[in-house]
C-alpha cells in the first residue's frame, strides 16, 4: 500500500469511519423487512459514531504546543511561499510556474510532515523562486497526495470539533431509536451520519472550496431531515424554509469565495491570510463569507429561520442541528477570522460582530419569553447562546490591529462553551422529544405536572435548563464565565454587561418551564411517561456530564486550550 495514501487517509479517519458505517447501515437496512423495528440498527449507528469520536480523540496531538508550532510554521511557510506576490495579477502569472517550483513546494510539504525534517522545510529556499497563488493546483499534478495536504488538516482544533460532532450524533441517534415510523429509522440514522461527515469535512478544511463542500453535504442532508414528516404541514414548512434560506446563505458564501478568487487567485485561507489587504473587494468578500456563517449559527438578525425549522423538524435532528451545526459554523468563523491578514483590519468586521452579538443576546432572550412552544423557546434561547459565543469571537480580535490570538483565552472559551452547550442542549431536546412523543405536543402545557408523571425526567430537565441559564455548579455557568472573562479582558464592557443582564432575563423563561413541571398540576387523564432504556441511559450520561463539567471544568478546559493553541501561528 502506498504510504502517501495512508497519510491522506489519516486526515479523514473519523469521516471514513462514519461514511463506511452509514453505508453499512443502509446495506443492512435494505436486507430488513418493512415490519422490522430497526432499533438495533440505530443503536449500531450510535456505536459507530462513538467509535468515530474515539478515533478523533486518538488522533489528538499530545505533543507540547511548541512542537506543533514548528510543524505548523513549516506547513504555513510552504503554503505562503506559493503566493508571495498575491494580487490581481496572480492569475495571469500562473503560466510561469515551472515544474521545478512545483516540486520544491511538494518536497517542502512532505518534509513538513516528518518532524525530523521540519527545520529544513521551515527555512525558505535559497533561490527564493517566486511561486504564484495558483501553483498548488498545478503542483497537485506531480503528486496526488499534495492536494489533500493543501486543502485539509487534522490539527487539534479540527479534531475537538470532530469529536463534538460525533458525540452529538451518537446522542441524537440514541434519541431516535423510538422514531415514529420504524420503516425509515435506518435512513434517518444514515442521513444524520452523512450530515456529521459534512460538518467534519467543514472544520478540517483550509480552503473555502473544501469548506463549501462539507457545508453542502451537511446542508443537503439537513434539508431532507427537516422535511422528514411528510404528512405534517409544519415539517414541510420547516423543510421548505430551511432549503430556501439555507441555499441563499450558501450562495452568498460561494459568491464571497469567488470574490476572494478574483482578488488573490486562490481561495486557500493561508494565501488569503498572507496577502489580505484592506481593499474594498476583500472587505466585501470577507463580509459575505462571515454573514453566511452567521446565518448558519442563527445569530440575529439572521436567525429568522431557526424557530420555524426547530418547531417543524424531527426533534432528534433539531438536537443535532442546534448543537453540532452551530458548533461547525463557529469553527469555520474562527478559522477564517484567525487568519493574520484579516486581523489586520479587524476594526471593520469587529463592528459587525459586536452588533450581531448584542442583537442576538437581546432578541433571543426577549422573544423567548413570549414563546408557548418549548421547541421555539429553545430555538430563541439558542439564538441568545450564539450571541454569548460571539462575545468570545469578538474578544479574539485585537482592536489595536496587531497579531491576534496571542492570548488563548477567548478561543478556549468559545470551544469550551460549544462543547458544554452541545451536551446540555441535546439533553434538553431529548426531554422535549420524549415528552412531545408521549403527550402529543411540545406546548408549555404538555409539561404541566411532569414531576408526578416522570419525576426523573423532570429533574434532569430542570438541571439542564438551569445549566442553559447559567446557574453555578453547572456546565453552562463555567462556559459563560470564561466567555465573559474573555470579553472583559478585551475591554468589551458594554457587550459583557448586556450578556450578564440578559442571562438574568433568560432565567425567567427557563423557570417558566420548571414552574409548569413542578408547580402546576397535570392535565386530567395525563398518563405517566415511559422512557426507553437507551434514551434514559443517554439522558443520565448527559446530566452527569453537565454537572461534572460544572464542578470540575479542568479536563475539558485543558482540552479546549490545547485545541485553541493548535490554531495559533
Amino acid at each position, binding site marked *: 500500500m*502506498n504510504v502517501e*495514501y495512508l497519510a491522506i487517509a489519516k486526515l479523514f479517519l473519523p469521516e471514513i469511519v462514519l461514511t463506511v458505517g452509514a*453505508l453499512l447501515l*443502509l*446495506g443492512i437496512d*435494505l436486507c430488513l423487512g418493512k415490519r422490522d423495528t430497526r432499533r438495533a440498527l440505530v443503536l449500531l449507528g450510535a456505536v459507530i459514531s462513538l467509535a468515530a469520536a474515539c478515533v478523533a480523540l486518538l488522533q489528538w496531538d499530545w505533543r507540547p504546543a511548541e512542537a506543533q508550532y514548528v510543524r505548523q510554521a513549516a506547513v504555513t511557510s510552504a503554503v505562503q511561499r506559493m503566493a508571495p506576490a498575491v494580487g490581481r*495579477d496572480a*492569475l*495571469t*502569472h500562473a*503560466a*510561469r510556474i515551472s515544474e521545478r517550483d512545483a516540486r520544491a513546494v511538494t518536497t517542502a510539504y512532505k518534509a513538513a510532515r516528518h518532524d525530523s525534517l521540519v527545520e529544513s522545510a521551515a527555512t525558505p529556499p535559497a533561490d527564493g523562486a517566486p511561486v504564484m497563488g495558483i501553483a498548488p493546483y498545478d503542483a497537485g*499534478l506531480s*503528486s*496526488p497526495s499534495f492536494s489533500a495536504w493543501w486543502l485539509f488538516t487534522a490539527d487539534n482544533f479540527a479534531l475537538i470539533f470532530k469529536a463534538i460532532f460525533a458525540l452529538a450524533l451518537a446522542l441524537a441517534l440514541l434519541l431516535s431509536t423510538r422514531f415514529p415510523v420504524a420503516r425509515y429509522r435506518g435512513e434517518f440514522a444514515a442521513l444524520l451520519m452523512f450530515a456529521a461527515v459534512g460538518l467534519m469535512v467543514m472544520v478540517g478544511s483550509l480552503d473555502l472550496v473544501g469548506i463549501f463542500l462539507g457545508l453542502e453535504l451537511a446542508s443537503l442532508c439537513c434539508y431532507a431531515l427537516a422535511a422528514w414528516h411528510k404528512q405534517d404541514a409544519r415539517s414541510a414548512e420547516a423543510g421548505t424554509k430551511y432549503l430556501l434560506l439555507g441555499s441563499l446563505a450558501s450562495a452568498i458564501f460561494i459568491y464571497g469565495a469567488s470574490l476572494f478568487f478574483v482578488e488573490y487567485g486562490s481561495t486557500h485561507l493561508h494565501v488569503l491570510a498572507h496577502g489580505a489587504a484592506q481593499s474594498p473587494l476583500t472587505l466585501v468578500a470577507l463580509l459575505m463569507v462571515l454573514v453566511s456563517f452567521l446565518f448558519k449559527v442563527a445569530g440575529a438578525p439572521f436567525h429568522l429561520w431557526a424557530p420555524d425549522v426547530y418547531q417543524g423538524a424531527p426533534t432528534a435532528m433539531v438536537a443535532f442541528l442546534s448543537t453540532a451545526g452551530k458548533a461547525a459554523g463557529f469553527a469555520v468563523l474562527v478559522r477564517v477570522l484567525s487568519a493574520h491578514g484579516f486581523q489586520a483590519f479587524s476594526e471593520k468586521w469587529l463592528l459587525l460582530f459586536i452588533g450581531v452579538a448584542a442583537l442576538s443576546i437581546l432578541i433571543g432572550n426577549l422573544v423567548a419569553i413570549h414563546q408557548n412552544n418549548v421547541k421555539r423557546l429553545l430555538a430563541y434561547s439558542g439564538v441568545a447562546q450564539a450571541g454569548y459565543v460571539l462575545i468570545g469571537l469578538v474578544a479574539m480580535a485585537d482592536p489595536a490591529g496587531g497579531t491576534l490570538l496571542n492570548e488563548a483565552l477567548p478561543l478556549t472559551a468559545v470551544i469550551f462553551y460549544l462543547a458544554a452547550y452541545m451536551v446540555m442542549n441535546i439533553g434538553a431536546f431529548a426531554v422535549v422529544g420524549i415528552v412531545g412523543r408521549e403527550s402529543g405536543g411540545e406546548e408549555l402545557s404538555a409539561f404541566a405536572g411532569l414531576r408526578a408523571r416522570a419525576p426523573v425526567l423532570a429533574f434532569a430537565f430542570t438541571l439542564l435548563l438551569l445549566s442553559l441559564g447559567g446557574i453555578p455548579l453547572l456546565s453552562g455557568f463555567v462556559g459563560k464565565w470564561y466567555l465573559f472573562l474573555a470579553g472583559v479582558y478585551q475591554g468589551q464592557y458594554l457587550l459583557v454587561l448586556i450578556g450578564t443582564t440578559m442571562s438574568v432575563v433568560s432565567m425567567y423563561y427557563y423557570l417558566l418551564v420548571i414552574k409548569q413541571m413542578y408547580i402546576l398540576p397535570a392535565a386530567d387523564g395525563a398518563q405517566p411517561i415511559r422512557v426507553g432504556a437507551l434514551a434514559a441511559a443517554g439522558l443520565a450520561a448527559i446530566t452527569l456530564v453537565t454537572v461534572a463539567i460544572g464542578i470540575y471544568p479542568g479536563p475539558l478546559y485543558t482540552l479546549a486550550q490545547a485545541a485553541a493553541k493548535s490554531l495559533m501561528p
Partner: protein
Amino acid sequence: MTLVDTVISRGNIESTMTNQAISIAVFFGLGLLFWMVALAASHLVRPRRPSAAKEATYECGTVPVGRAWYQVHVRYYIYALLFVLFDVEVAFLYPWAAIFRRLDGFTLFLLIDVLIFLLILVFGLVYAWRKGALEWE
C-alpha cells in the same frame, strides 16, 4: 490584422486575460448578430398564411394536450433526481479521465479512487431500486 488574429497571434501572457474577455465578447456579438440577421431575413422572405395548426404550441411533433400548468406526478422528480445524479457522475469522470495518463505511478490508486466513487453511486442506485423508487405503482 483582425481582432481575432490579434487574440491568436499575441503570445503575451499578461494580456491573455483581456484577450480572452475580448474573444468572448466577439463570440457573443457574432451570436447576437446571427440571430437577428436570420430572423429578419426569414421575416422578409417567407410567405405568411397562419392557420390553427400552425399557431398551436410546438411539442416535437406530437399534438399538445391540455394546458402547460398542470401538476406533475411526484414520481417524475425521483426519476429526474436519479438522472441528474448519474449525469453529474459522468461530468466528474471527464476531468478524471483527462489527468489519468499524466499521473504516472499513481494510476492504480486513481483507479481505486474512482471505483470507490462509482461504487457509492451504484450502491445508491441499488438502494433506490430496492426501496421501490423506480416502480411506477
